[in-house]
């Protein structure tokens, strides 16, 4: 709301910086309020406009930094998939579009899978990269989600998926459509293993992405003002020929209509998700003897979670631990394939 910072600074710069040794993109214009934001401020403010709190699309690496404790995470390598199996060509070849996106983003495809701690809880995150072909979901993205889910099950870790996607990748035809059942199978297995599966809906989450894994989470969180819906606004308008409400298909609208649990501001994501995960995984449940000490504040959550974890691993050799994990994974696999998981089984595996 500062008039001086909004207008004077860019102007002064345009006068002073005549020589053009300053890159053009030092200032960003907020698409919502037109306010000018200095690039460093934008970065520091997690790509949220400090004038109007508009949540802009955040680069996927920054996204992972703000989600994980201490911006610490490691990337999970993803399996290669068949490239352009349809030999698809519209005005441009699909392979060329892929090449362009790879050059632009320095990423292989539209998803990154990472692991690290959130609120002290070891967590797997699969985050979409909207800059890569609009975050569209083809075989590579689907395989990324399958990998993330399998990792979550084998490490007994919660899974969080962060969609930012226009929908299915048309250039992969029905193969991209099949990512809907594939990702649903993947996330179903996480849930069947008694592990939390959270979805953090970000702008935009539409089409085949919203109509698959994104709407079957245990808990749905959304960033303020994100567009979340099945059909595009224009298509709906052309079909029904009526005006749509202003807040149509926004996060807030979805909360109102019972599809999203909470709208969470970007700056609070780490702490809110941390709390949710630590509750669901019972990380901070005090042992019987120290029941007087129940009021663990949010700030102690992190260290407490870590302590619990290190306590557990004490006295276990790496091999034993790995063996155990493998055994448990096998059990889970059996449980999920043998029969519909009984409620008791879920609880039991969650407690371990």
């Amino acid at each position, binding site marked *: 709301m500062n008039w001086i910072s909004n207008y004077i600074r860019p102007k002064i710069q345009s006068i002073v910086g005549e020589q053009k040794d300053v890159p053009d993109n030092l200032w960003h214009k907020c698409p919502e309020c037109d306010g000018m934001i200095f690039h460093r401020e934008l970065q520091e403010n997690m790509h949220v406009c400090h004038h109007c709190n508009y949540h802009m699309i955040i680069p996927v690496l920054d996204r992972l930094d703000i989600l994980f404790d201490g911006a610490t995470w490691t990337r999970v390598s993803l399996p290669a998939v068949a490239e352009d199996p*349809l030999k698809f060509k519209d005005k441009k070849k699909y392979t060329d579009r892929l090449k362009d996106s790879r050059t632009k983003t320095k990423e292989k495809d539209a998803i990154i899978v990472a692991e690290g701690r959130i609120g002290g809880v070891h967590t797997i995150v699969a985050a979409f990269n909207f800059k890569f072909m609009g975050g569209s979901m083809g075989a590579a993205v689907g395989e990324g989600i399958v990998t993330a889910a399998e990792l979550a099950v084998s490490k007994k870790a919660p899974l969080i998926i962060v969609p930012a996607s226009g929908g*299915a990748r048309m250039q992969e035809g*029905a193969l991209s459509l099949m990512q809907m059942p594939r990702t649903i*199978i993947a996330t179903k297995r996480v849930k069947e293993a008694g592990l939390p599966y959270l979805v953090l809906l970000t702008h935009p989450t539409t089409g085949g992405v*919203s109509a*698959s894994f*994104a*709407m*079957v989470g245990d808990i749905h969180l959304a960033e303020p003002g994100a567009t979340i819906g099945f059909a595009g606004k224009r298509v709906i308008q052309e079909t029904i020929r009526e005006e749509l409400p202003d807040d149509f298909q926004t996060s807030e609208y979805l909360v109102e209509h019972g599809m999203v649990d909470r709208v969470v501001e970007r700056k609070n994501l780490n702490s809110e998700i941390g709390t949710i995960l630590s509750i669901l995984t019972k990380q901070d449940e005090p042992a019987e003897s120290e029941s007087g000490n129940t009021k663990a504040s949010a700030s102690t959550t992190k260290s407490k979670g870590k302590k619990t974890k290190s306590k557990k691993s004490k006295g276990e050799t790496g091999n034993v631990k790995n063996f155990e994990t493998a055994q448990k994974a096998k059990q889970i696999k059996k449980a999920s394939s043998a029969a519909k998981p009984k409620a008791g089984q879920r609880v039991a595996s969650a407690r371990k």
Partner: protein
Amino acid sequence: MLDFEKPVLELENKIVELRKVSSNDSGMNISEEIDRMQNKIQRLLVSTYSKLTPAQRVKVARHPQRPHFKDYVEQMIEDFTPLAGDRQFGEDEALIGGIGRFEGQSVVIMGHEKGRETNERIRHNFGMARPEGYRKAQRLMRMAEQFDLPIISLVDTAGAYPGLGAEERGQSEAIARSIETCLSVETPFISVIIGEGGSGGAIAIAAADKVFMLEHSVYSVISPEGCASILWRSADYAQDASSALKLTSEDMLKLGLIDDIIKEPMGGAHRQAEKTIKRTQTKILESLRELKALPRDKLLEQREQKFLDMGRNL
């Protein structure tokens, strides 16, 4: 009328005329002439239908005279008892279903119905289901599991309905949950794409043990028109999009995304509905036998693995 069937139609009209003339003048012997013309029609159909372009396939798949869900039910299912409502909000006649007997076996059958006459088409919302349709489908699938009945689903939709109310009531969630239910029910599940397999609206009831496509049906992530208007920036390129999307039954089989193709009678299902349905019935019966022989826990595991493996060997 399909443009590429015009020569066939002209011949058919001629035969009708000839018959009319001959009935007035009983002295005329036209049977030879009619035979000759009918042979020509057959040859024309063979030559036309053996080299249909993907865009023409889309037209055949959407042909209004193609057998619809109701036609299949009438011919294949005895004691069909339609069931209505999602028990939450309403009834959606774009996706209908119920219980009945298929070759003597109790089954649950459901599918999209596009309707034929104008008022019927409106009542069935042109086969474009709303959340209530997908929630009713979930209800029917759960019921099938509860009573240990196989599920047959017939897919014929341009896609899920894009409307204000549909979005309000959670179209995405309804489709997602319907796919999840398909992949969770422990009972044999067979799906046949009988006309249009339109995107999320189709897969919502087609994540099955066996998925078959009628020869001239199509299955796609987006309509060719929609795809053209996004990627070519004009719906005029729908033909190019039809080819690029690889939406025919042969392409789908080659990509390993369906289990088999059901051959249509020469000239398409819209010419010989009864024969088409009979072939479909035989295929379903054959497949049902196979699936019933499998232990139930194996069934679900195989179903999941089939989808997980898709695209991995391309």
